[in-house]
């Protein structure tokens, strides 16, 4: 077990290094693009050019350039933006990360609880009108574009009905740090959470229901019923517990991609300065250092999430534990 964990950590590190090399090569070592000129700015004096070239090692071989870049990203953390001169990119990301993390964690909690409740209820009442109703609802959730939903939510809660008793508690758009004002944090995020969660509630409840229905025909479910267990116990203790294995892998990937910047639209609609927005800015300005930093950040999250999913697998599935 310890060995498995160690091996997994090694793989994680290897993947991260690989991604950083790739991103570096794509953005900094593409022929024709002179990063020195871009960093130094238009009409920079030859002295400035020379200073930048030495600082970033652009006059040295590629491996040295790469090492410099990584040093500036992870050790000295003084990589600066091309666009907003003097703006250090690493602190910028560290500021955006808690926003995104708050948004995605809250939404994830909501979508896990709701989709498990819906999926299990639908599977238990399979074929009835409750089942059909819930799955229809899920489909609606999947089909609603998150950007549009966010706009409608804002329209209703921020302007149209903001003064009614129902929505007067809703604060203006933007983020409130949890450490400063927990209640304010909650108020500011609860609508973005729900908005972001809708799509995933739809997907997860449908996937879980399908899984639970498929698992019904397994031999071990028949054994559980033959033991005289109650239908609820058969469904939850034997069916749901087994279906959780696929559920968790799906969850890990979605969570990671959202934390890594995939919640862009929700962040934009609700005026949250998160990682998704930052990445979007970096790409639209072709701000290479910021791109480098945000991509590395996403990669770290996706890879860590994968590692966590694998660990959860080990806990959830004894067959994986034995390497079978």
């Amino acid at each position: 077990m310890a060995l498995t964990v160690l091996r997994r950590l090694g793989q994680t590190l290897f993947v991260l290094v690989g991604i950083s090399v790739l991103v570096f090569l794509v953005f900094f070592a593409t022929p024709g693009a002179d990063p020195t000129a871009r960093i130094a700015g238009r009409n920079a004096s030859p002295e400035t050019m020379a200073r930048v070239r030495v600082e970033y090692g652009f006059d040295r071989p590629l491996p040295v350039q790469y090492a410099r870049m990584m040093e500036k990203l992870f050790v000295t953390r003084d990589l600066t933006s091309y666009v907003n001169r003097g703006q250090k990119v690493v602190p910028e990301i560290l500021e955006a990360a808690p926003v995104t993390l708050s948004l995605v964690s809250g939404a994830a909690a909501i979508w896990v609880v709701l989709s498990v409740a819906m999926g299990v209820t639908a599977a238990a009442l399979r074929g009835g009108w409750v089942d059909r109703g819930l799955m229809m609802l899920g489909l609606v959730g999947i089909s609603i574009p998150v950007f549009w939903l966010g706009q409608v939510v804002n329209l209703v809660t921020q302007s149209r009905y903001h003064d009614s008793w129902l929505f007067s508690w809703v604060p203006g758009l933007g983020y409130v740090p949890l450490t400063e004002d927990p209640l304010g944090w909650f108020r500011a995020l609860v609508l973005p959470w729900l908005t972001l969660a809708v799509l995933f509630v739809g997907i997860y409840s449908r996937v879980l229901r399908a899984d639970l229905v498929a698992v019904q025909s397994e031999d071990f479910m028949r054994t559980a019923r033959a033991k005289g267990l109650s239908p609820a116990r058969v469904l939850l203790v034997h069916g749901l517990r087994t279906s959780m294995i696929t559920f968790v892998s799906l969850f890990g990937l979605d969570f990671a991609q959202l934390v890594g910047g995939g919640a862009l639209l929700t962040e934009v609609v609700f005026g949250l300065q998160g990682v998704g927005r930052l990445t979007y800015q970096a790409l639209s300005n072709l701000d290479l250092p910021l791109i480098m930093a945000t991509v590395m950040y996403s990669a770290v999250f996706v890879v860590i999430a994968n590692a966590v999913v694998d660990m959860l697998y080990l806990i959830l599935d004894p067959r994986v534990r034995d390497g079978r």
Partner: protein
Amino acid sequence: MDGDMLLAVRDLTVALPVGGRLVPIVESVSFTLGTREILGIVGESGSGKSVTSLAIMGLIDVPGARITGSVRFRGRELVGLPPRAYRALRGREIAMIFQDPMTAFTPVYTVGRQIDEQIRAHQKISRADARARTVRLLGDMGVPDPERVAGRYPHQLSGGLRQRAMIAMALSCNPALLIADEPTTALDVTVQAQILDLLRVLRRDYGSSVLLITHDMGVVAETCDRTLVLYSGLVAERGPTGALFAQPAHPYTAALLDSIPPLHGLRPARLPSIPGSPPAPAERPAGCPFGPRCTHVHAACATRPPLVACGEQHVACVLPTEGHPLPPRRVPEMSA
């Protein structure tokens, strides 16, 4: 007549929806099972053995299924029993073991935990007491080092150990009736013999009656007091195993017996097997269902033959009533 019987099944018919139509999968099956008796139900794959046993267990949950007839267990009617009452019975008074012990345990729990679960579903006892009983049961089933095995996951055990654990689980609440649906089919021959030994011992030590379902006449010969031969969802023949093996009255029984490989002596170059295959339930002919494969088929077989007494057996064939019963078999080497 069914008074002192543990289980009396009469005219059990199970109809399942196939392609939008209710098709009788099992038709008018009747038999009885006494206390401490082992009854074998034999038949080719698809003859309705599993459906029959699941119907007795109340485990047919196909939407639109219709079960008619009567299943009396200890004098109590089970057909139409409310789910809650059935659940109290399942696992406690009637227990079942399945063909493939690999897939019959939930993969994510230890076998010990799954046996504890069954005990605790039916009795108010502590976790520790349940586990003590689990370990004792596993030991009784001939599992070496039962304490350790109880803590193992299903995939960590061999097929034989898994099936022993499955039997331990079935017996955990001292059921009066054990239904074993092809318990040895997925196991290799030596393990198969051990499991059959175990089933025979059960009757002695636990006082359980056993309904042993198999497609293997050899297993029946070794284990069962009485035998029921099922063909395409209908009873072809039933009676004491010895008599049925010595003088089968139904051509299908005779053909099944001919296809058992002999235990001793020269093996024939090719075992005679029955040509053709049984009809699907939806295409069962109106007359004798075995007609299309029977070497004795004639005009009278076009109407479905009723079950009639013939010697010690009951048989659904026109030959005995017409005065031409099948001759006794020439292989008297049966141990039943």
